């Protein structure tokens, strides 16, 4: 009897295993669905953390070289101006800039804003002009209102703008604390472009004096300092010097911030991943039990195959192909679903984990972080364990003796 090539044989075996998969449709579809859900959850986690890391990494090169903070009793406190001349004396330091920023909690809107004080005129000219949608206030009104209250001009993020849209901006006072005698007015002169939404969503940039008043920062104190070091190699040494000279100060270099970008999600996503692994383990035990607990007609079917001349290793490869096709389809479907869920639907459920209780949050339109290597990781996490679990049950099924069916009835 002519026998075909190895490849032809495998094609027939794949055909047969597909047939047997479709024959026991209900059980296999249930397993497929559970498998797809698991792979979906795993790849969703990895997608979202990958994208967030990627979003941060884009702008990480423009971070300040060294951020200097004053730590008192383990907590960050305002840094007095007296440190600035001494830091500038350190060789290699080009400039030391001061920063005034902090948070402001609006109880009525239950929103936590980031207040940042800087000289807004800097944003009006040159390269920074195009990061803001300037409000086209009629000229004379602008001069009039600006001149009378120069300190309270403000540029706000998109999220803040949406939040404040429904209250009449002119008559409302946002910044008021009971201890103040009168509230601080504000005058919005522009909002940040939606492209920078992920960074500027809850940001309120005020004139430095305005920020000082809102944050109640004494005139000679700043929130933290930024040290510019022209030679990137020197950043680490200068940070070390600052820490040595001023034990009360803490330095965070750009490399360290980038490191927190790369590792924080890795650590947490893997934490979520490993809790998912418990679910995957439970699923694999189910598979082990389903595959090894042969239903009587499955045992009879294999008995028939063995009786009409099938080898054990042919039956084994049928079982292998069944497992491979099932887990292959499941992992592919899981990944595609996860992509759609995160980048088309913008991760409705998962987003809340990252957003927490905040009321202002970005639209989560993330950059997709997809590369072929990712596929390999998902395959390893889904296909390899599945095949590992079905090796023994498949063998147990494949060695059923033909005379099992010789003797029993029907």
């Amino acid at each position, binding site marked *: 009897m002519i026998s075909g090539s190895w490849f032809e044989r495998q094609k027939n075996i794949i055909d047969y295993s597909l047939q047997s998969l479709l024959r026991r449709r209900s059980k296999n579809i249930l397993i497929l669905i559970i498998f797809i859900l698991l792979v979906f959850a795993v790849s969703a986690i990895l997608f979202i953390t990958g994208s967030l890391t990627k979003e941060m990494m884009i702008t990480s090169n423009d971070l300040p070289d060294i951020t200097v903070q004053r730590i008192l009793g383990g907590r960050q406190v305002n840094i007095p101006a007296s440190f600035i001349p001494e830091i500038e004396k350190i060789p290699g330091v080009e400039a030391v800039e001061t920063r005034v920023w902090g948070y402001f909690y609006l109880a009525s809107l239950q929103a936590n804003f980031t207040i940042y004080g800087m000289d807004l005129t800097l944003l009006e000219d040159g390269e920074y002009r195009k990061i803001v949608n300037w409000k086209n206030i009629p000229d004379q009104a602008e001069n009039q209102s600006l001149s009378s209250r120069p300190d309270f001009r403000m540029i706000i993020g998109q999220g803040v703008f949406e939040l404040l849209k429904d209250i009449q901006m002119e008559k409302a006072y946002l910044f008021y604390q009971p201890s103040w005698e009168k509230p601080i007015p504000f005058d919005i002169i522009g909002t940040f472009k939606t492209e920078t939404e*992920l960074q500027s969503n809850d940001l309120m940039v005020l004139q430095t004096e305005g920020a000082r008043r809102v944050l109640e920062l004494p005139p000679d104190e700043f929130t933290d300092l930024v040290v510019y070091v022209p030679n990137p190699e020197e950043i680490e040494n200068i940070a070390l010097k600052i820490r040595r000279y001023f034990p*009360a100060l803490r330095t965070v270099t750009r490399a360290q911030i980038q490191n927190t970008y790369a590792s924080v999600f890795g650590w947490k996503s893997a934490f979520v991943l490993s809790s998912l692994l418990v679910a995957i383990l439970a699923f694999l035990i189910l598979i082990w039990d389903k595959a090894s607990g042969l239903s009587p007609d499955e045992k009879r079917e294999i008995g028939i195959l063995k009786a009409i001349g099938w080898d054990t290793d042919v039956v084994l490869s049928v079982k292998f192909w069944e497992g491979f096709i099932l887990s292959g389809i499941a992992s592919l479907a899981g990944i595609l679903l996860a992509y759609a869920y995160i*980048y088309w639907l913008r991760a409705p459920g998962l987003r809340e984990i990252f*957003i927490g209780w905040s009321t202002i*949050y970005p639209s989560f339109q993330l950059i997709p972080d997809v590369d072929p290597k990712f596929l390999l990781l998902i395959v390893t996490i889904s296909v390899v364990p599945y095949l590992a679990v079905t090796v023994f049950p498949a063998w147990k099924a494949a060695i059923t003796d033909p005379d099992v069916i010789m003797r029993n009835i029907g």
Partner: protein
Amino acid sequence: MRYSSWLVIVMVVFCLWSGLEYRHFHKQLLETRQHFNVRCRFQKAIGLPNLAITSAARYLRHYSITDLTTPFQDYPASPDHFPAGFAFVPPDYSNMPSPIVFGNPEK
């Protein structure tokens, strides 16, 4: 080969679907490439790190430059501000200023 035609159908559906997603991925990538310089400008103008994903707690918004005890400031028993704290971890504090000093400092 009737049955493996099922497999072929499934594979074709997957190819179409991933093609669709690749197109979306590509469009998205191009779109964000234009935003790059706007974002970098913004980051240069305002030096604060981290994304404005959550403003639930101080140390979650700028977790890269937060300090050690702020997370405990809210409530000593909840090191993390659930659930967003679940997604962020305080950075390593190797650069906190608490070197071990030997000998007697008065000298």
